[in-house]
């Protein structure tokens, strides 16, 4: 299972890194339920509430996105994803005042075996913060999110160039991660 997933994941990530947003979306869609399980099991193991699982999952997703250049295309994606998931879980628990041992083996095992868990479609922290993201960056992130616009459609709607939209989007996502960490510090 792990090997099957990883082969796809690595190929999709490679395609995504070179600009194939459809492949990249497949990767994110495929990873999300798995990340949710990792978060739930991790929180449960640490004795924390699994109500926060989707927060941890969204933050992990955002971190994977912002740090994707640190994955080496020659390596399997699974261990890299597991390391980020573990780091984000520990970081989350630390901010909640818990020190937890999160064994990487358990995460990798989950990654291999766990049945994906479905979304409860609730509004999570990262998403809520996106709603309050200030300035042009916030406009761009919301314009793309709300009606599932592409870069080009968002550029037309906001009367910006596509390049400016790309830059604002990238900055907005970075800012989103910073806001999240600041709020939960």
């Amino acid at each position, binding site marked *: 299972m792990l090997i099957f997933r990883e082969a796809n994941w690595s190929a999709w990530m490679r395609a*995504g*890194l*070179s*600009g*194939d*947003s*459809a*492949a*990249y*979306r497949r990767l*994110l*869609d495929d990873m*999300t339920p798995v990340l949710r399980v990792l978060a739930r099991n991790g929180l449960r193991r640490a004795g924390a509430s699994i109500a926060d699982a*989707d927060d941890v*999952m*969204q933050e992990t*997703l*955002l*971190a994977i*996105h*912002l*740090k994707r*250049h*640190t*994955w*080496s295309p020659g390596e399997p994606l699974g*261990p*890299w994803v*597991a*390391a*980020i998931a*573990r*780091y984000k879980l520990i*970081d989350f628990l630390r901010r909640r005042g818990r020190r937890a041992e999160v064994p*990487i083996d358990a995460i990798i095992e989950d990654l291999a075996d766990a049945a994906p868990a479905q*979304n409860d*479609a*609730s*509004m*999570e922290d*990262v*998403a*809520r913060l*996106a*709603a309050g993201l200030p300035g042009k960056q916030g406009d761009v*992130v*919301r314009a*793309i*999110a*709300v009606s*599932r616009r*592409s*870069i080009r459609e*968002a550029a037309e709607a906001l009367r910006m160039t596509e390049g400016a939209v*790309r830059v604002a*989007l*990238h900055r907005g*996502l970075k800012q989103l*991660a910073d806001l999240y*960490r600041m709020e939960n510090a």
Partner: protein
Amino acid sequence: MRTDELIHVLAQDAASAETPPRRALLAALALATVLAAGVGALLLDPRADIAQAAHQARFLAKFVMTGAFGAAAATLVFRLARPGGSASLRVLAAPVAFVAVAVTLEMLVTPAPEWRARMMGANWYVCLAYVPLIAAAPLVALVATLRQLAPTRPTLAGAAAGLTAGAIGAFFYAAHCPDDSPLFGAVWYTLAILIVTCAGALAGSRLLRW
């Protein structure tokens, strides 16, 4: 915005224009070296007898020692910069062994009553002040680059950056330093490098979380 919307937004930002870790860190190391050489040259003159010193094993050993520590520490930084990167401190075995051998040889060829004087040297306090001073800009360069990467052990990554910067600082300080005995180096260079390592660990725990 729900998770599926977040995914849609992330997918629009698929292509990555960020520099891969290896290249970013190589550039940071080059910058760190240039900065240390520059600050070192600005603050200190090379010792007056450098032409003769360049033929002496003790003087040269200082560069081998600091260079070896710098290279070993840099490999730790490369590994710790990426998620899940594990760093075995075993890479430090070679430089530590080199210092141990140099100290042992020095103790074999010099009479015991002289050891203390050689260890204390002429100006250990200059060493303790200037090595961290020369290492400061390189440490900033390395930590700034690590912030763009993804160390999952921030404190350790910061310490490795500090060890690298400290070794680079000591390397360039060595050309000025009049004390060549391995006994001096093993104590004061090590202590000076440790100060920078601690500064790096502190910076790492504060600045390298993401």
